[in-house]
């Protein structure tokens, strides 16, 4: 494939400031720091390939779209069981919560010790990503729609579902009951 000419300074201005957001999204989708590093590296290489086609001003949404694709490609290659077949909207809506907890998830639990973090990590990726993009990256519905490649209406329904799942999460319920027992 023909390599588009890359303006080094422009790339540094457009992509490098998004590395935190990219790594955060990759980390939340892969549950692993090392894997997130590989994914962001892959995303940077893709961004370099497609940089000539980027003319817009919304650099964050543009780069996060690439990061998200790199994430799902990586998961498909390494943990295909985590992705619902077809990877379409319906499949994500109906995806069951992953029953098993990966070693990375366990490590993250030990590191943070937060029931909310655990509950968020346990959400299906389709819900987890919209919540991360909304609450941690503070993206608008429109930007989330672009990054996740879904209509704005789907962004709203997934956010509502993700928040509902989080509020009713057994992990949070257990904490509430424990706290109530102590009280």
């Amino acid at each position: 494939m023909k390599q588009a000419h890359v303006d080094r300074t422009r790339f540094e201005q457009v992509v490098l400031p998004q590395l935190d957001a990219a790594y955060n999204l990759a980390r939340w989708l892969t549950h692993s720091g090392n894997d997130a590093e590989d994914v962001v590296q892959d995303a940077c290489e893709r961004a370099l390939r497609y940089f000539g086609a980027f003319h817009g001003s919304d650099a964050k949404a543009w780069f996060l779209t690439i990061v998200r694709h790199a994430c799902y490609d990586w998961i498909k290659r390494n943990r295909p069981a985590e992705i619902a077949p077809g990877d379409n909207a319906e499949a994500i809506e109906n995806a069951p919560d992953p029953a098993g907890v990966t070693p990375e998830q366990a490590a993250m639990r030990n590191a943070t010790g937060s029931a909310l973090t655990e509950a968020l990590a346990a959400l299906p990726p389709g819900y987890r990503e919209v919540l991360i993009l909304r609450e941690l990256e503070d993206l608008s519905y429109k930007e989330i729609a672009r990054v996740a490649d879904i209509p704005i209406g789907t962004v709203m329904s997934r956010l509502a579902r993700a928040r509902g799942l989080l509020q009713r999460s057994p992990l949070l319920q257990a904490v509430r009951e424990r706290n109530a027992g102590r009280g």
Partner: protein
Amino acid sequence: MDCHETTDLLQAYGDGELDPVRSAALERHLLGCTECTARRDELTALSARVRSEVPYHRAPQAVRARALSALDAVVSAETRTVRPRERWGWLSGGALAGCAATVLAWFVGTTVLDWQAEHDLVTEAVTNHTRATLAGGSIISIATRSPPWSIATGCTTSTCSSGHSLQSLRLLRRQVSRRSAASTWSTIAGPGWNGGPCRMLTPRC
């Protein structure tokens, strides 16, 4: 706005995505509805908890370093591939300029030579005409060049002083070159020429 409608809009309201008109209507409803207000507070609290408790993973230095090295790799690869192309670009540009210069030189050269030839032809014709005038007025045939430049010309002594204008002779030459030798007579003896001070190739010359 009722509770059912409010439930659908509470999330967008909390996320700051609701337009001002519906936001105002929703706020009016919240003032008089404790259930919807409680739901709004739950959503606000959850959002605040996620933002404060859930870790934001900042990119380690290694990520930045790897991104920069990927950028360096692409930029240096481009430098390697683009430079020879630029060199060829200069070469082809030079070749193009050379061709243009050659064409220009050829064009200027042939124009000058052509002008020179014409000038010589006219000069010769004028000289011959003058000679004819001085010789006494009968038809003088001037063979200036081999065909198609053979021009037969002459004039009557009574009507022509020596020296046809160059313009007339140029016109004559063009006519000769365009037409066949057979039609030259009628062309030259046409009304335009007969009407002037010089009558060329007429029987009375």
